[in-house]
């Protein structure tokens, strides 16, 4: 029970003591389940691994390639860099052993780590990666050890094309984060809209997909029209979006595994449809349509049947977003003379005003974290627009972005810990990410052209064969 002692030592405040106590329980449970595993019964995954006071830190030494394996060495560089960056995205900086201090101890022997050395530089968890490349396939072994006991708490092996070391690092990061009770998003993807394919005479907007960190950007639509407002389906294999390719803006569904789109999924007849939002169970789509004569929020079954107007009102209603429970829908209405956020039950009843603040609020995005009750939105502040977050219970609003120009169109990371939005601080619009308090703002995808309307989702693998 050495590890719990070092944890208790770290506890210098009541909160930390509590955390330390929890960690003790968690480690005890973990070891107990480990014993069972050794006896051959199926073990439960470790319930938790709680950081206490920054003492149990991660050490992530460089990935080690098989001797003489040049391709493996090359892949290793990317694996280490991406793995560190993925973990730092979710975990506070001070939970990592600085790479510089690893030079004070003997080089890692991945098959027989000297745990005392790692303990001496403050490592609580040692993350070992080994790589080899055989016939164009990269194989990476991952082990995470408790430094104090030397026990392996996680052991995995992954393979991918040697062209794709990032995907291995992303999966390894999510597997490590699972030990800390964080549902990682390193394998998640962001859909967005880019005008980079425009020419002088032809201004187009096409849908793109990219990894959550801005890499692997890929154009999805190719129709030289306007394709906007993408939103991930809960199945992770489809997007709903708006396309003007048939002249009238209507809802399309991109079937990502089949490389094709289905047109007019809301069954519009000559009217327009905008701003699709899937219900969390994927059975319904809320959207905005002018089919009753002015813009209202409608809901339709995912198969196009049963379309129903939820906001029969002379004002314009727009931009619906579902609550993560599926029981409510927030939206924008200008019924008070200016755009403000409202919320209603999913059947259209019980409408309440949400934003009492500011003169112009739009583009809601409800946090997928059910325990938080937060809605991100775009708000006019002075002469520009900024992203803000409303705490529904208290009505308090916190401003996420601030600065020259504007930021708009927020979307939540699938675990609710970060936000992505689009900012024009640099002169062009670019996808930008921050944590949920607005810290650690970084611009992604500084690709060509303007890159806007991000939607962050969990992508599922397509069936193979």
């Amino acid at each position, binding site marked *: 029970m050495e590890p719990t002692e070092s944890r208790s030592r770290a506890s210098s405040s009541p909160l930390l003591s509590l955390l330390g106590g929890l960690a003790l329980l968690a480690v005890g449970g973990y070891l107990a389940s480990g014993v069972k595993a050794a006896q051959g019964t199926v073990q439960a995954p470790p319930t938790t691994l709680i950081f206490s006071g920054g003492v149990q830190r991660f050490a992530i030494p460089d990935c080690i390639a098989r001797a003489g394996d040049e391709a493996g060495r090359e892949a290793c560089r990317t694996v280490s860099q991406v793995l560190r960056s993925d973990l730092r995205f979710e975990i506070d900086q001070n939970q990592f052993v600085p790479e510089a201090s690893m030079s004070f101890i003997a080089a890692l022997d991945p098959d*027989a780590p000297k745990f005392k050395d790692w303990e001496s530089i403050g490592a609580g968890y040692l993350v070992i990666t080994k790589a080899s490349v055989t016939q164009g396939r990269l194989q990476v072994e991952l082990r995470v050890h408790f430094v104090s006991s030397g026990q392996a708490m996680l*052991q995995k092996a992954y393979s991918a094309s040697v062209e794709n070391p990032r995907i291995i690092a992303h999966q390894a990061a999510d597997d490590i984060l699972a030990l800390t009770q964080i549902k990682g998003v390193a394998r998640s993807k962001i859909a967005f809209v880019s005008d980079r394919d425009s020419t002088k005479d032809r201004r187009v907007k096409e849908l793109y997909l990219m990894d959550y960190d801005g890499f692997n950007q890929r154009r999805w639509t190719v129709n030289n029209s306007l394709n906007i*407002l993408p939103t991930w389906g809960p199945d992770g294999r489809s997007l709903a979006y708006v396309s003007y390719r048939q002249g009238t803006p209507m809802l399309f569904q991109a079937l990502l595994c089949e490389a094709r789109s289905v047109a007019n999924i809301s069954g519009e007849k000559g009217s327009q449809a905008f701003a699709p939002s899937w219900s969390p169970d994927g059975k319904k789509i809320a959207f905005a349509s002018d089919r009753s004569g002015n813009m209202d929020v409608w809901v339709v079954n995912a198969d196009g049947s049963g379309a129903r107007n939820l906001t029969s009102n002379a004002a314009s209603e727009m931009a619906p977003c579902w609550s993560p429970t599926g029981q409510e829908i927030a939206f924008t209405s200008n019924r008070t003379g200016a755009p403000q956020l409202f919320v209603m039950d999913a059947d259209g009843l019980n409408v309440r005003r949400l934003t009492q603040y500011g003169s112009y609020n739009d583009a809601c995005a409800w946090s997928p974290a059910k325990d938080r009750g937060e809605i991100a939105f775009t708000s006019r502040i002075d002469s520009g627009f900024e992203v803000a977050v409303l705490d529904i219970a208290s009505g308090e609003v916190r401003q996420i972005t601030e600065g020259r120009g504007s930021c708009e169109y927020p979307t939540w990371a699938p675990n609710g810990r970060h936000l992505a939005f689009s900012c024009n601080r640099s002169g062009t619009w670019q996808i930008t990410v921050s944590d949920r308090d607005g810290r650690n703002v970084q611009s992604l995808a500084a690709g060509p052209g303007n890159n806007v309307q991000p939607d962050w989702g969990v992508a599922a693998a397509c069936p193979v064969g």
Partner: protein
Amino acid sequence: MTRQRTLFSGLLAAMLALLVVGCAPKRKPEVSTGPPPPPRTAIEPLDTGDVNKMGGEGVTGADVAGSGEGGPMADVRFGFDQSSLTDEARAILAKNAQWLQAHRDARVTVEGHCDERGTVEYNLALGEQRARAARDYLVSLGVQASRLRTVSFGKERPLDNGHGEDAWARNRRAHFAVTR
């Protein structure tokens, strides 16, 4: 016989044990004591079926109508955040109505456009209000409603890509695209 049966049940037990081991969930972390053993975990192939590697949609035809520029009828302009018609706008619409009366086969898409200020969704709603205001006035001047269709472009396809008052004024407009 007894020995055979023992042998047989032994084999069965071994096979069952193999089966159990074979079916153990892959994603469960394994715990070991002492020096780390060689990996016993199954290798997870990660890059099969990645939606980013499946290829995008094939080339699909675009409706090039609604390009937002040109045509026989002049644009109507709007004030900032406004969808009401000015006297100047009414005068232009009267001329457009004359053109439509003289070209009775023509069908027209009335496009509502906005300047770049404001949110994507609000501007799509505002563009729709502008298109509808222009359409309704043309109908009040005797143009058949069935010849007119409204489409909002919001701020998605500005006429002028500039970022100043002049560009914004040009972009706040209803445009009339003849589709037939």
